[in-house]
């Protein structure tokens, strides 16, 4: 069933990745010594290995300013030159990265809970592969694209500082220029790359071919996300304009949202979602507990998403960011609940859950600078907006099973603009225009790029599963697995 095209694409991407990472590992002496031990584990060979590694470590420790070749021996010497403050900051960023990693489980639960049981395995599969692909491609290519340092190629729009993971000895210490090591930087930023791609998986769920989605993820997370991120976080032209996006309302959420919009437009809606008159029909999620688990995991992970974006464990900023994050999430929940119950008569759980995420996305751009009241109001408004946004996309016949467009795209844009609208803490001020420029710039690259990727796939390998496969369920059609083999999951209403 898998076409030659997809196989060819997979192989070339695998090759690209291997070349990229291989360039980071060329310590011939140490490798030769290790090989010798592996081949014939004699005492002499072991002694050679010990001697080689001791010499290596001594050399690295003796001249920490010099660049060690290729892969760095992780030595105690690096840790000796750092102080407790550096250790604490580094540790916090590492833990925050783990919290962001947990968000992938959150996404998996939300998306599968809000979709039908017959597609559950497919959604779990996509959400499990996404962090893996995202991190691998970010290591190979994305990190260099996103943080080019001084190596700008095209104005301050595209830069690139090399493929693969190639730090220097000094990058394990405070000499890196930040309060964490090179590896922690890669670890933390790599987690973000995949969150951007996983937003798309919810919007295109229940009808996209899994191979098409995986290829999209590779390209989007490896190329589009880092380039856009470099404009702000990597020191590009948006940073020069005074654009402020603290933890990624634009760079992560709206970029993911534009990709999702492109996918939804080119895929079409699920069979039976809209009547011929353009009314939306109910297609209910199969597991509300899982959806709730997902939202709580995302909320929990967001403390790392925003908290880690402080890029240090500095108590003042970190504690403030945690507060604004929590307030916005709570206000988003309340806002969505009130809007849903006033508009529809009864408060709907899944849209209230979306409200929590909306509040979080909304405050992500300015969690470090908006005032307490601003955080609450931004969250509240995001919660209100998301309820109307969900109906808005339905009116346009754009089928979004989990509300990704409403939460990430609409509220991502809102959150970014909010930094220029609402009051911020004393001694800071942000203008509306740079925020608007940032929003539009991200849209200008993300949306056409995603449209192009999806369009090419639509014309070559096909984006959507067949009608019969869609009815049978993607679990059986794409994976020949069932999510709930002991249960009979029927949909007859």
């Amino acid at each position: 069933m898998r076409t030659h095209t997809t196989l060819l694409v997979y192989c070339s991407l695998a090759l690209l990745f291997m070349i990229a990472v291989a360039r980071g590992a060329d310590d011939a002496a140490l490798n030769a010594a290790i090989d010798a031990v592996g081949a014939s584990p004699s005492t002499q060979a072991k002694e050679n290995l010990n001697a080689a590694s001791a010499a290596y470590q001594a050399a690295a420790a003796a001249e920490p300013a010099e660049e060690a070749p290729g892969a760095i021996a992780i030595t105690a010497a690096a840790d000796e030159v750092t102080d407790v403050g550096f250790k604490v900051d580094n540790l916090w960023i590492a833990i925050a990265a783990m919290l962001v990693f947990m968000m992938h489980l959150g996404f998996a639960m939300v998306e599968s809970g809000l979709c039908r049981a017959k597609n559950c395995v497919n959604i779990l599969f996509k959400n499990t592969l996404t962090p893996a692909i995202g991190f691998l491609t970010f290591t190979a290519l994305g990190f260099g694209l996103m943080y080019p340092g001084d190596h700008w190629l095209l104005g301050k729009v595209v830069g690139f500082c090399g493929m693969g993971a190639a730090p220097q000895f000094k990058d394990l210490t405070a000499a890196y220029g930040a309060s964490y090591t090179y590896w922690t930087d890669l670890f933390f930023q790599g987690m973000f790359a995949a969150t951007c791609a996983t937003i798309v998986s919810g919007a295109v769920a229940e009808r996209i071919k899994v191979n098409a989605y995986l290829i999209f993820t590779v390209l989007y997370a490896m190329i589009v996300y880092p380039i856009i991120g470099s404009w702000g976080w990597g020191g590009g032209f948006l940073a020069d304009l005074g654009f402020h996006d603290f933890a990624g309302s634009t760079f992560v959420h709206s970029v993911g949202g534009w990709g999702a919009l492109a996918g939804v437009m080119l895929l079409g809606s699920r069979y039976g979602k809209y009547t011929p008159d353009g009314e939306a029909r109910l297609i209910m999620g199969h597991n509300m507990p899982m959806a709730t688990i997902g939202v709580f995991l995302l909320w929990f992970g967001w403390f790392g998403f925003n908290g880690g974006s402080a890029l240090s464990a500095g108590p003042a900023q970190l504690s403030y960011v945690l507060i604004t994050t929590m307030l916005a999430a709570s206000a988003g929940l309340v806002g969505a609940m009130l809007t849903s119950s006033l508009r529809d008569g009864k408060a709907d759980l899944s849209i209230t859950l979306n409200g929590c995420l909306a509040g979080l996305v909304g405050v992500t751009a300015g969690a470090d600078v908006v005032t307490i009241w601003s955080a609450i109001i931004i969250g509240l408004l995001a919660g209100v907006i998301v309820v109307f946004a969900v109906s808005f996309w339905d009116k346009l016949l754009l089928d979004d099973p989990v509300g990704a467009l409403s939460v990430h795209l609409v509220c991502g844009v809102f959150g970014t603009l909010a930094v220029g609208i609402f009051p911020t803490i004393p001694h800071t001020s942000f203008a509306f225009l740079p925020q608007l420029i940032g929003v539009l710039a991200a849209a200008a690259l993300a949306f056409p790029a995603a449209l192009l990727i999806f369009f090419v796939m639509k014309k070559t390998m096909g984006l959507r599963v067949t009608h019969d496969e869609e009815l049978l369920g993607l679990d059986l059609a794409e994976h020949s697995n069932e999510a709930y083999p002991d249960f009979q999951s029927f949909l007859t209403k």
Partner: protein
Amino acid sequence: MKLIIAYIKPERLNAVKQELYAREVYKMSVTNALGCGQQKGYAESYRGVISQVTLLKKVRISIAVNDNFVDTTIEGIIAGARTGKIGDGKIFVLPLEQCIRIRTGETGSDAIG
């Protein structure tokens, strides 16, 4: 009085209901069923082991009708359920001996309504 039992594809249930409503047949009961006829099943696998599953999801509609409604009901079901592909289902017509409405105690044709 007849009891009409129809096995249809689950995704046609909505269409069948609309067709029946259009013919003024409003009362029915619907259950889930697994079944197979000429339709081939699908292959399922788990950790490298593959098996063929032949029982497919169907929906069973049971409608009790008076004799004068039998033909329109069958027409309605076929109009909604027919796709032209194998697996569309079957309709069975059974004689119904008695029908009682629980709330009022009516029997016979009045109970069917």
